[in-house]
């Protein structure tokens, strides 16, 4: 093998605002890196082929599949996981709405769900229910039947829009 290719890669990135340096195996995906190497178990490794959405994390401002990005590719990136989003308080209202509306039961999908919703809410405005459903089409929930989740998103979008207008 040509020595241009490495089977362990040195990376430096920020995770939830903190600088992190690590050496990762070439094939390790971002969610395993976050969970196994950094102990950030908020993001879940579900289907590991991009279908279920439980691994959704924020990379350089966008929601992405943590299982479909290599840790090696996160060199220089700014990564936010549910732990960081929770601590920073940016989705406090959304998390409260999830509890108030029973938008979670087992909680497995919730971190990915919240991360995807954060992206939608950041666009501003009050999305139609169909648009909320469409945006969440890549996040599977096997408990709630989605109705309560859509309710929660809608109520937070309304509240934020009113607050912005006031």
């Amino acid at each position, binding site marked *: *093998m*040509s020595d*241009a*290719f*490495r*089977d362990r*890669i040195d990376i430096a990135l920020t995770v939830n605002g903190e600088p992190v340096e690590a050496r990762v*195996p*070439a*094939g*390790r*995906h971002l969610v*395993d890196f976050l969970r196994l190497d950094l102990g950030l178990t908020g993001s879940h490794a579900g289907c*590991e*082929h*991009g279908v279920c*959405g439980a691994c*959704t994390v924020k990379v350089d401002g*966008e*929601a*992405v*599949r943590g*299982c*479909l*990005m*290599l840790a*090696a*590719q996160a*060199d220089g990136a700014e990564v936010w996981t549910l732990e960081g989003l929770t601590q920073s308080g940016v989705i406090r209202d959304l998390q409260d709405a999830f509890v108030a509306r029973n938008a979670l039961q087992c909680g497995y999908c919730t971190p990915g769900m919240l991360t*995807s919703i954060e*992206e*939608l809410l950041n666009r501003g405005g009050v999305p139609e229910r169909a648009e909320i*459903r*469409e*945006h969440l*089409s*890549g*996040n599977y929930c096997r408990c709630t039947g989605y109705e309560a989740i859509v309710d929660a998103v809608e109520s937070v979008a309304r509240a934020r829009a009113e607050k912005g207008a006031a």
Partner: protein
Amino acid sequence: MKALAGGYAQARDLRHALDLLGQADGMGRVLAGGQSLIAAMNMRLTSGDLLVDISRIAELRGVALDGGWLRIGALTRHAEIGRDALIARHAPLLTRAVGHIAHSAIRNRGTIGGSLAHADPAAEFPACVLALEAVLHLDGPDGRRDVAAEDFFLGVFETAIEEGEILTGISVPVAQDGERHVLREAARRSGDYALAGLCLLRRTAGHRLAAFGVGPCPILARGAMEKLDHGDIDGAVAALSGEIDPPGDTQASAAYRRHLAGVLLRRALSDLEGEQS
């Protein structure tokens, strides 16, 4: 299961990427958005690849207008295509396709070049570029070459890209005044690959119709196009049915997909009429 990569290297620019592929001795594998490749690696459908990560090569990303052509870099992401004003104006078919491709988080990383190189028979972009008569640009050890969309897709996951070559971008002829583009597909859940789908264009010169999910690669339905040019809708539906070769699998039988293709053609035509009024 977990991915097993043979190695990883991040390419600084196109030259570097081609050099890396050259050094990989046949084991090289281009990594773009990773939205198909890393899924396949996680499932161990492929392992031991020497990954050449091209995802940060800025020169391969973006959209520009160049005379009568829209030039789209291979690394332009689905989400970027979906919100690009030049594309909405000059190749609205691509804008429409994006809403059908996977889900938001996947569209944030997946690239149009990756989608074309991957050549899933049910993918939207391959059929779009076929309908649009786009030209695909390749660069490789023997230099650059252009391949017409019609000559690019060879079979299931098979394209004209040779060992050591990289798809750098595509050129799409800009839509003429009055040209109409519609895309229709049927999928069981939003974001799934289509059971069957159609890209339909109406140009002054005539119709263009490309079908996806109904054969080993996207199909240009010439017989149906001719019937449409003569205003013969029933004839076009019948012709289309003869031109496609749909697979039967756990998602849908071949007969059902064939039926869907006809239904979708009628719907696409009524979309065209609706657009004009």
